[in-house]
C-alpha cells in the first residue's frame, strides 16, 4: 500500500534521479510517488511534464510490473463477511474483495485475488486441478511469481467446444504455464454423445492414465455455473434442447465441473452423468483443498448450494455476493459487524523467567548425566581410565582397524555417546555443555582406540572443537599415532553454498558417524575411511527450526528471546539464534521452506535415493516430529524421490529447545551399502 504522504522537498536538484534510474521516467515517477510520497502535481513539476502524463506513467509502471502493489492476504481474509461465512459453513478461508469501484470487471478482480490467494492455498509438491469458465481463466491469467516447486496441474474434466475461449485446456495450460508446473491434460471431450462412447474412451490407456491423476489431487480450483440461459454450462455445449425440455435438470441450481447439484448441494443423477468425462462430485469432495472462486448475484444460489453440499473448503468472492449468501441464510450483515467487534479478546502476555530442571548443582550436570549413562548402558559403554568424559564402546577392536573418535560438547544427548558401539564410533570425548572437550581427554581416547591403523576424528565444525582436536592431533602425532580430522558441515542454513566449508555440523553427524563406523568395521584403511566419511558429510543437508529457545543449566533462563508468533529458521544445536527470524507458520509450511532450501541445494532429481532424519531439538515431542515427517514424505514423493532409510526421534538435541531439524542425505550405492550395515549402540540399533 502507499505510504502516508509526507511532503518531500524543496530544491528540485535534490530530487534528480539517482544514476541507476537512468532516463526511465516511469521508474523515476514511480519512485517519487511511492517512495518519496510526492503528489502527482509535484512530480509533474519535477519532471517538467503535465499531471496527466505523470498519471499515465504511474499506470504504465504498474502495468509493466515496475511497481507491484499487493494488499496483505491476511487483511483480505479478515473481512467480517468472510469470517461469518467461514464460521457458518466451516470453511478454512473466505476471501472477500470489493465488488465495485474501478474499471476492472468483477471476473478479473476475482481472478486476481484468487491468484494472490494461491500463496496460502497451494504449496510445493501439490497436484492441482482446475475446471473451466471465465473466472477460472481470469485466475490462471493472473497467477505469477509464486516460486513453487514440483507442482502438477491437471485438467479437471475433458475438453469442451472451442466456441468459447475459456475452455478446460486453456484454463489448465495457462495455470500450469504461470506456475511453472507440469501439465496433465484429459485428452477426451468433457461431454460425449453416448454412454457407450464414454466407456470406450475411458478404456483407452492414455485417457485412463491421465484420469488416474485426478485420484492424487491435493487441491482443486473450481468455478460454478448458474443454470441461466447464457451461463457457462450452456455455452460449453452440455445441453441440447431435448434434455432441458424433458426436465431432468429442473431442480438444478448450478453446475460444477460439468456435474449438477440442487439447492441443498445434492448431486442430480440425470442422463448427462453417463456421458460426462472428468472428476466426479464424490471424488471432488474428498480432495483436501477445494477452492471455489465465484461472484455475481446470479451465482448466489449455486454458491450457497455448493457450500451446503460440502464441496468447498475455501471461497473467494466479492462483498456483494458474500452479503447475499449470508442474507439467504437469514443473517443481517450489519448486526454481525457489531457483534464481532465486541468480542475480540486481548492477547495474553506470556512471561517466563526461570526454567525448571532436574538438576542438583549446575556445575555437576554433565558429570552426573554421564554417570547415569554409564550405569544405564553398561553393555554399550565404559569409561576410559576412570574418566566419565572419555568413553569407549564395549565392542572389541581388532588390530589393524581404524579407530573412530567422535566428540563435542554435552547437551546433545543422546549425541554423542549414543553413537559409540558396533558399526559406529569407538570412543567419544565429552566437553562441558555446548563446549568442546579439552585436548588431554581427546588424546586419551585416541590412545585407547589406536590399533596401528590410525584414528579418524569426526566432530562438528566449530572454532573451539577445531582448536582442541588440533592440539590433540599434534600430541598424538608426537606419540606416533596418525590422525585425520573430518569436520561435519551439514547445516546448510549456516552459510551459503559458496562458503560450504564454513558451515557447522548438526544432526547430519548421525549419518556421518554411521558411515565411518561401517567403513572401519570393514577394516578399510585410513585413506579409504577418510574418503567415505567426507563423502557422507557432503551428502548430508540439514536445516533446523526453533520455536522456543533452550536454557542452559547454569542460567536456567531462555538462551534468547523470541515473540509468541515468531520462529527461528536455520538454528544450530547450541541454543544460539537461527539465521533468520520469521513469523510462525504451520508444520507443513515450515517443512516446505526446509524442503525448498534443501532440494535446491542438493539439486535433488526425481528418481534419487535418500536417507532422512527428522530430529527433535529436545523438547519437541515425537508426535510433532511425525507430523513433520508426513509432509516431508509428501514432498519427497512429489519429486519421485525414494526414501531408503527414515529416522524419526531424539538423535541430536540442543537441551530443551522446542524445535526440529530435517536432514536429507543423498545416497549412491556405496553410501547406501554402508548405511545398511548392522550397527548397535544406545541410540541406533540396526
Amino acid at each position, binding site marked *: 500500500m502507499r505510504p502516508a504522504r509526507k511532503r518531500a522537498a524543496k530544491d528540485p536538484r535534490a530530487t534528480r534521479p539517482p544514476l541507476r534510474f537512468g532516463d526511465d521516467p516511469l521508474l523515476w515517477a514511480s519512485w517519487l510517488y511511492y517512495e518519496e510520497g510526492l503528489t502527482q502535481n509535484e512530480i509533474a513539476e519535477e519532471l517538467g511534464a503535465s499531471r496527466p502524463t505523470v498519471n499515465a506513467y504511474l499506470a504504465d509502471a504498474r502495468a509493466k510490473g515496475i511497481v507491484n502493489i499487493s494488499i496483505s492476504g491476511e487483511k483480505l481474509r479478515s473481512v467480517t463477511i468472510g469470517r461469518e461465512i467461514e464460521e457458518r459453513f466451516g470453511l478454512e478461508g473466505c476471501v472477500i474483495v470489493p465488488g465495485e469501484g474501478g474499471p476492472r470487471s468483477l471476473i478479473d478482480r476475482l481472478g486476481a485475488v484468487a491468484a494472490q490467494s494461491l500463496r496460502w492455498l497451494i504449496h510445493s509438491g501439490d497436484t492441482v486441478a482446475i475446471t473451466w469458465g471465465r473466472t477460472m481463466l481470469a485466475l490462471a491469467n493472473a497467477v505469477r511469481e509464486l516460486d513453487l516447486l514440483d507442482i502438477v496441474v491437471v485438467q479437471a474434466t475433458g475438453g469442451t467446444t472451442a466456441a468459447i475461449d475459456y475452455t478446460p485446456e486453456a484454463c489448465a495450460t495457462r495455470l500450469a504455464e504461470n506456475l511453472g508446473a507440469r501439465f496433465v491434460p484429459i485428452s477426451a471431450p468433457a461431454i460425449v454423445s453416448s454412454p457407450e462412447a464414454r466407456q470406450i474412451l475411458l478404456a483407452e490407456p492414455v485417457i485412463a492414465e491421465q484420469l488416474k491423476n485426478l485420484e492424487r489431487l491435493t487441491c482443486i480450483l473450481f468455478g460454478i455455473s448458474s443454470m441461466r440461459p447464457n451461463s457457462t454450462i450452456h455455452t460449453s455445449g452440455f445441453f441440447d434442447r431435448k434434455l432441458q425440455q424433458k426436465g431432468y435438470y429442473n431442480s438444478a441450481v448450478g453446475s460444477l465441473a460439468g456435474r449438477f447439484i440442487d439447492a441443498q448441494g445434492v448431486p442430480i443423477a440425470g442422463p448427462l452423468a453417463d456421458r460426462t468425462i472428468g472428476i466426479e462430485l464424490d471424488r471432488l469432495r474428498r480432495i483436501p483443498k477445494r477452492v471455489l472462486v465465484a461472484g455475481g448475484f446470479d451465482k448466489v444460489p449455486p454458491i450457497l448450494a455448493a457450500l451446503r453440499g460440502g464441496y468447498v473448503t475455501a471461497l473467494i468472492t466479492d462483498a456483494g455476493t458474500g452479503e447475499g449468501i449470508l442474507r439467504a441464510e437469514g443473517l443481517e450483515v450489519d448486526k454481525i459487524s457489531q457483534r464481532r467487534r465486541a468480542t475480540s479478546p486481548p492477547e495474553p502476555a506470556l512471561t517466563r523467567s526461570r526454567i525448571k530442571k532436574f538438576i542438583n548443582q549446575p556445575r555437576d550436570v554433565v558429570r552426573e548425566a554421564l554417570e547415569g549413562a554409564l550405569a544405564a548402558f553398561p553393555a554399550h559403554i565404559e569409561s576410559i581410565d576412570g574418566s566419565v568424559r572419555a568413553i569407549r564402546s564395549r565392542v572389541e577392536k581388532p588390530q589393524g582397524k581404524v579407530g573412530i573418535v567422535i566428540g563435542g560438547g554435552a547437551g546433545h544427548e543422546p549425541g554423542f555417546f549414543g553413537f559409540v558401539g558396533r558399526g559406529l564410533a569407538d570412543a567419544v570425548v565429552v566437553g562441558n555443555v555446548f563446549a*568442546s572437550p579439552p585436548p588431554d581427554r581427546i588424546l586419551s581416547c585416541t590412545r585407547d582406540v589406536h590399533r596401528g591403523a590410525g584414528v579418524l576424528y569426526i566432530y562438528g565444525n566449530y572454532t573451539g572443537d577445531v*582448536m582442541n582436536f588440533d592440539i590433540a592431533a599434534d600430541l598424538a602425532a608426537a606419540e606416533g599415532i596418525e590422525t585425520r580430522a573430518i569436520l561435519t558441515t551439514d547445516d546448510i542454513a549456516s552459510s551459503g553454498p559458496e562458503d560450504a566449508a564454513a558451515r557447522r555440523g548438526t544432526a547430519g553427524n548421525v549419518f556421518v558417524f554411521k558411515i565411518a563406523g561401517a567403513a572401519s568395521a570393514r577394516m578399510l584403511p585410513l585413506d579409504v575411511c577418510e574418503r567415505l566419511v567426507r563423502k557422507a558429510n557432503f551428502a548430508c543437508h540439514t536445516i533446523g527450526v526453533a520455536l522456543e529457545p533452550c536454557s542452559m543449566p*547454569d*542460567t536456567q533462563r531462555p538462551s534468547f528471546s523470541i515473540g509468541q508468533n515468531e520462529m527461528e529458521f536455520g538454528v544450530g544445536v*547450541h541454543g544460539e539464534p537461527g539465521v533468520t527470524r520469521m513469523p510462525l507458520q504451520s508444520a507443513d509450511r515450515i517443512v516446505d521452506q526446509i524442503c525448498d532450501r534443501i532440494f535446491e541445494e542438493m539439486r535433488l532429481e526425481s528418481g534419487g535415493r535418500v536417507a532422512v532424519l527428522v530430529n527433535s531439538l529436545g523438547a519437541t515431542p515425537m508426535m510433532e516430529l511425525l507430523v513433520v515427517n508426513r509432509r516431508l514424505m509428501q514432498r519427497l514423493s512429489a519429486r519421485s524421490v525414494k526414501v531408503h532409510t527414515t529416522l524419526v526421534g531424539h538423535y541430536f538435541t540442543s537441551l530443551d529447545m522446542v524445535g526440529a531439524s530435517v536432514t536429507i542425505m543423498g545416497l549412491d550405492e556405496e553410501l547406501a551399502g554402508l548405511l545398511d550395515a548392522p550397527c548397535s549402540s544406545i541410540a541406533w540399533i540396526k
Partner: protein
Amino acid sequence: MTTIDNAYLRSFFRLAAERLEAQRQDLCSLDGEIGDGDHGTSMANGFAAINARFRELSAEVQEPAILLREAASAFLGEVGATVGPLYATAMFQGAALLEERPLEQIRLGELLAAFAEGIRMRGKADLGDKTMLDAWIPASQAARNAAACGGDAAAVARAATAAALEGADTTTSMIASRGRAARLKERSLGHLDPGAVSAALIIGTFAELAEERT
C-alpha cells in the same frame, strides 16, 4: 622495582576468579544473545580450576613462568571449549616471556602483548573481528604507552583497564567474523562480544591489584 612474581600472579588469578564468578550469569546472558550462552560458565569454572591447581602446588614453586604454565594447563583441562585453547596459548606465551627474564610490574604491557599474541595465533583473528582481542590488543598498547610516558605501575594498569573497557564497548558496532557469532552476520551488530567483556574484566584485575598494593 617490584617484579611480576609468584605472589603477584597468585593474587591476580584469585581476584580475577572472584570477578568472573560474580559476572558468571551476566556473561552467559550476553553470550546467549549472539553465541551459545556458556561463556560465563567457561570463564568462571576455568579460573576456579586455576586457583584449585595453585592450592595443590607445593609452596616451593617460585618461578612465575612455571605458575603460568600450570594455570594454562589447568584452564585448558577444565574448559576445553573455544576459550580453553585461546587462554591456554595466551598463558603459555606469557610464561615464555617470563622465562627469559624477570619482568617489572611497570612493563605489564609486554605481558599483555604476549597474551594477545598467543590468542591471535591460536584463534587466527585480529583487531576488529569482534573478539576478545578487541580488549587485549588495545590494553597491551595502552599499558606500554603509559609506561613510555613515565607512568607508575598503577597508572599502567589503569591505562590498560580503560583501554580494555573501551575496546570491549566498541565491539557493539562490529560484525563478528570469527566464532559462532559470525553465523549471525549483521545480526551480531549492537551486541557486546562476551569474550571482549570478560577480557576487560580480567584486565581490570591488574588495576585492582595495583590499588591493593599501593
